[in-house]
Structures are given as structure tokens and as C-alpha cells.
């Protein structure tokens, strides 16, 4: 990992990722926080590319920046505009202490451990190899992941649509009777224009 391009890319992208994560915390507006989050995702995709993980980087942009970002934005649109502030709870200080302590411990462990580093060449064709691993060695997890996705999709739809109460059913029963004269009017107006 010595090339000029890769080293400078690592430092720039790490700085962008950390500053964007800080931006989520600091920004006053909820939608600005979402945009900082998406910038963090893109910076992380860049870091994956410096690690020559091209397939995972592209998947990160596609799923996180493209899909999860839009999902969060839509969810924010469905909640009230009065709740769109980025306020903190009373655990602001203690949360900072806990998070700082946790990341310090993690960083210390990372720096102090003697990792079994292997001098490996950069990955060339990750997509094909990941594909073959997914259907040979990790096929069970692959099938279970597809099951998880189906369940999540159906569950999300049920949660957002569900909970029809009785008065609504009565309203729906009354609706077809209401639309019949409308249909006849549509036909007559259509014919009159004709």
C-alpha cells in the first residue's frame, strides 16, 4: 500500500468520513444530517476501493447511498415537520464519554495487537470469486439472507399499511355505491365529447 494515489486517497477519504460523521451530530436540521450520512457512506465506499474491494464498494454505493439513503429520506418525509430537529437527549455528555471510551479501547486493541498480517496481492476479480463463494461455501447464509429480505419487505409493508379499524371498513363499503353515479357521469361526458 505504498502508491502515492492510494495513500493520499486513504487520508482524504478518512478525513471526509470522520468529518461527515461529525456533521451528522452537529447539524441542526434532520435532512442535512441525512445528507451528511450519505456522504459518509460514499467516503466509506472510497475506502473500500483503496482496499481493492471493488464489488463491495459498488454494492455499498448501490445499497446504502442509493437505497437506504432514499428510504431514510422518505421516512423523514412521513413524520411531522415539527419533529425534524436534530436535538439531543440529556445523555449528550454521558453518551460522549461512553462513546469516546469505547472507541479508545477499540483503537488501543487495534494498535497493540500483533495481527497475523500476510503480504497479499491486491484483489483482482472479487466479483466472480464472491459469487462462487456465495453459492458453494456460504450457500446456506445466502438463502437465509434472501428469506430475511422477503420477511423485511413484507413486514415493512404491513407495518406501514396495517391497522384498519372498523369505521374505515364502513367507509370502504360505502365507497363503491358512491362511485357508480360517478362512473355513469364519466361515460356520458365521454360520449358527449365524442
Amino acid at each position: 500500500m505504498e502508491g502515492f494515489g492510494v495513500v493520499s486517497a486513504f487520508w482524504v477519504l478518512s478525513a471526509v468520513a470522520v468529518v461527515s460523521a461529525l456533521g451528522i451530530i452537529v447539524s441542526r436540521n434532520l435532512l442535512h444530517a441525512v445528507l451528511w450520512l450519505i456522504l459518509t457512506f460514499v467516503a466509506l465506499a472510497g475506502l473500500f476501493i483503496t482496499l481493492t474491494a471493488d464489488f463491495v464498494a459498488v454494492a455499498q454505493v448501490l445499497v446504502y447511498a442509493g437505497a437506504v439513503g432514499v428510504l431514510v429520506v422518505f421516512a423523514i418525509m412521513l413524520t411531522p415537520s415539527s419533529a425534524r430537529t436534530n436535538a439531543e437527549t440529556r445523555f449528550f455528555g454521558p453518551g460522549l464519554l461512553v462513546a469516546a471510551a469505547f472507541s479508545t479501547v477499540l483503537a488501543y486493541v487495534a494498535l497493540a495487537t500483533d495481527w497475523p498480517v500476510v503480504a497479499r496481492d491486491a484483489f483482482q476479480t472479487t466479483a466472480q470469486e464472491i459469487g462462487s463463494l456465495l453459492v458453494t461455501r456460504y450457500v446456506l447464509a445466502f438463502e437465509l439472507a434472501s428469506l430475511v429480505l422477503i420477511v423485511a419487505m413484507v413486514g415493512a409493508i404491513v407495518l406501514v399499511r396495517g391497522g384498519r379499524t372498523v369505521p374505515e371498513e364502513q367507509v370502504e363499503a360505502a365507497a363503491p355505491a358512491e362511485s357508480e353515479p360517478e362512473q355513469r357521469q364519466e361515460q356520458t361526458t365521454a360520449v358527449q365529447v365524442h
Partner: protein
Amino acid sequence: MRVTLEHYLVVSALLFGLGLWIALAKRNAIIILMGVELMLNAVNLALIAFSRFAAMPGGRPPLAGHVFVIFVITVAAAEAAVALALAVAVYRNRATVDIDQINLLKL
């Protein structure tokens, strides 16, 4: 200068700490979800760094880290969908997504 495994792990720890702070200290349920996503992303970075630099234990192929990350991305996306649907459903019942006010099971 060289960029080694420890560099990536420190960045990952930093991002994880920031995600943890967001999840602990914010009021809006959706921002808390964003903190959780950030934590998962930090973990993904650590996994890919290990896959690139370190020897895989137990004779696993070196791309096992990538496969693991694909699954983490999948499950995180599914979890984001369900969590946001929950947030919207909670808003419909309580008219707020402020977690300080959704602290009673009684409606």
C-alpha cells in the same frame, strides 16, 4: 509512508464511536437508526481491512471477509426498512418520533 491494517482499524474505531454517540445521545428515532447504520458501516470497514491484510483463520478463503460484508449490508438494509416502518407506525399512534416521549407502553 505505508498505509497498514492499523490505520484502517483506527478509522473504523473512530466511526464506530461516533455512531455510538449518535445512537445514545439523539432524540429523534430516525437519527438513532442512522447512528446504528454508521456503526454497521464501521464494522464493514474493519472486516474488509482484515480481509485484505490479515490471514484468514481456519483455512477460510481470503474473500470470506467480503462475503461477510455483503451479508452485513443486506441485513442492515432489511433492518433499516423495518425500523423506519416502525418509526412511521409509531408516529401514527403517538404523533411523535421523539424517544423521550415514547417511554410508556400505555397509549
